């Protein structure tokens, strides 16, 4: 029997149960035995795979002298099992439970701050769409190529707006004098993107903007909405896209299938007070491919909100439109400075080739 360790005389107290005492003895032995200690995972991995600070673990047991803690050194990357890497890039699981092996030198290395990455591919310039690779930096996975970004497994196609009252003949705004030509022009390309998504397993989500006919949406908001529709006669505020009417439905050419989600949005941003974020997360969606109207209104807001909420966004420039061509161009120019803007042909081609590749397997 090992001699008792200073400070732990409570085990001699008779009121403590045998079971408790043997558990304490076992734990102490486990932590103080040098040969056992090396097998104990010295890093507690948080649920997302990132290790906690090593120095906290010094408090839980007595370290024998054979173990050395080195501050400021690098944690060998290979021995970690980060959850954020995809399965095929994760190192194989170690058998027997411990989450990491001791290092080859036999010492335990720790660091209190994250240092520079050990494995890191230096690139000459920034990758453009179509070049590059999946980057990993400080444990954070970054998708940079278009192929990665719009992979059907984690992509959703968003069709925003494009409703009867806003852009169909006989809709309220058409009758109020709106020129529908900018909207009719892009329907063909959007239909192609939609059928490409449906054929290749990309999740499709429709966003319908609605406007209630009274002030329940807020006077400030309604002032903006009707102020923006400058073709309306002064003081005219015809109710449009009223929930439950034909006007709020998406136009026939792009109508949702019964199993496709429809999100009703009261503001420009499809994320504002809607369950769009929930729908995307529960389906494991990482990227949004955005189409619809209007570029400087709903698309701009939705894309920015998606980027803030940690989604990737790809805008199809031939599938977005606005009744003001100049604002369409300006909005796309600013959005190019934040996210990727490409054509529907490129994206549908990637979808076709990627899902064809999968089917072959």
């Amino acid at each position, binding site marked *: 029997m090992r001699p008792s360790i200073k400070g732990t005389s409570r085990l001699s107290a008779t009121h403590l149960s045998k079971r408790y005492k043997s558990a304490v003895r076992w734990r102490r032995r486990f932590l103080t035995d040098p040969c056992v200690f090396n097998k104990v995972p010295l890093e507690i991995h948080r649920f997302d795979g990132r290790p906690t600070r090593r120095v906290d673990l010094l408090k839980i047991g007595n370290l024998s002298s054979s173990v050395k803690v080195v501050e400021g050194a690098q944690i060998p990357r290979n021995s970690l099992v980060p959850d954020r890497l995809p399965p095929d890039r994760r190192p194989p699981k170690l058998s027997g439970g411990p989450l990491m092996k001791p290092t080859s030198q036999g010492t335990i290395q720790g660091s209190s701050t994250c240092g520079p990455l050990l494995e890191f591919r230096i690139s000459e310039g920034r990758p453009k769409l179509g070049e590059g690779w999946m980057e990993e*930096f400080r444990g954070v996975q970054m998708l940079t190529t278009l192929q990665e970004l719009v992979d059907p497994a984690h992509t959703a196609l968003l069709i925003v707006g494009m409703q009867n009252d806003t852009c169909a003949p006989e809709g309220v705004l058409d009758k109020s004098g709106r020129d529908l030509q900018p909207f009719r022009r892009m329907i063909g390309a959007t239909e192609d993107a939609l059928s490409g998504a449906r054929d290749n397993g990309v999740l499709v989500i429709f966003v319908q903007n609605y406007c209630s006919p009274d002030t329940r949406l807020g006077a*400030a908001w309604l002032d903006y909405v009707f102020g923006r529709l400058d073709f309306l006669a002064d003081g005219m505020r015809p109710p449009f896209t009223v929930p439950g009417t034909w006007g709020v439905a998406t136009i026939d050419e792009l109508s949702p299938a019964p199993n496709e989600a429809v999100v009703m949005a009261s503001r420009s941003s499809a994320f504002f007070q809607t369950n769009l974020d929930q729908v995307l997360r529960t389906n494991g969606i990482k990227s949004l491919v955005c189409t619809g109207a209007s570029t400087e209104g709903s698309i701009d*807001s939705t894309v920015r909100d998606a980027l803030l909420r940690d989604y990737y966004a790809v805008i199809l420039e031939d599938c977005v439109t606005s009744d003001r061509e100049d*604002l369409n161009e300006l909005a796309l120019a600013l959005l190019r400075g934040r996210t990727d803007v490409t054509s529907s042909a490129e994206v549908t081609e990637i979808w076709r080739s990627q899902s064809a590749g999968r089917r072959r397997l």
Partner: protein
Amino acid sequence: MKSVTLGQVLDPTHTAVVVVDVQNDMCAEGGLLHKLGRDLGPFGLMVDNVQMLLASARKVKVRVIYLENTALPDYSNISGPWMKISYTKFKYLDQRFHEHPLTVDGSWGHRTVKQIAPQEGDIVIKKWRSSGFLGTNLDQVLRCSGIETVVAVGTSTEGCVYCTVRDAQDHDYRVVVAEDCVTTGRKDVHAAALTLLQHRVVVIPSTDIEAAWGGYESKRRTSQSS
């Protein structure tokens, strides 16, 4: 529908000035972006204008709220998409080559520039993404203070100011952007962002805002003297 005038919109009892990201790392000499080559000329002008606007705001007891862009030092609040934006898009900031991100929590670079430092009674809110509303209590603070109008100043016009303004409008606040109190590194981008903002919210020079507040100040003086 009754139309509102600018004076009514800017009533000091329900107006707040929101100062977006005027921090040392973005706008000051020795900050991270200055070290990476940013030209601070437009930023100096912007800070001077903001200082004057805040002085006139405080005279009429308009609330001032500072938003400070924040990042945790070990990148633990930065996601792939968020890092990709700075990595592939922003001119100066390539996160791969820096030990720490922009505006690390608690650092000098994170603090608001000294020239317009927060005073007693001002509220300082840390923000984690471009929009000042996402993941913060800004909306709660504005509602509980009875604020209906937000006057937006700061940087950058097409980024944090744009996202915060848009979000404020979604949250049913009236927004006034002081066009000479917002800026960004590139003039063309600044102009484009202001054009788009004009179609959403009111964009006016800060002198007009100060004039509206001046009207309230003289009203206050008259009521006090009488």
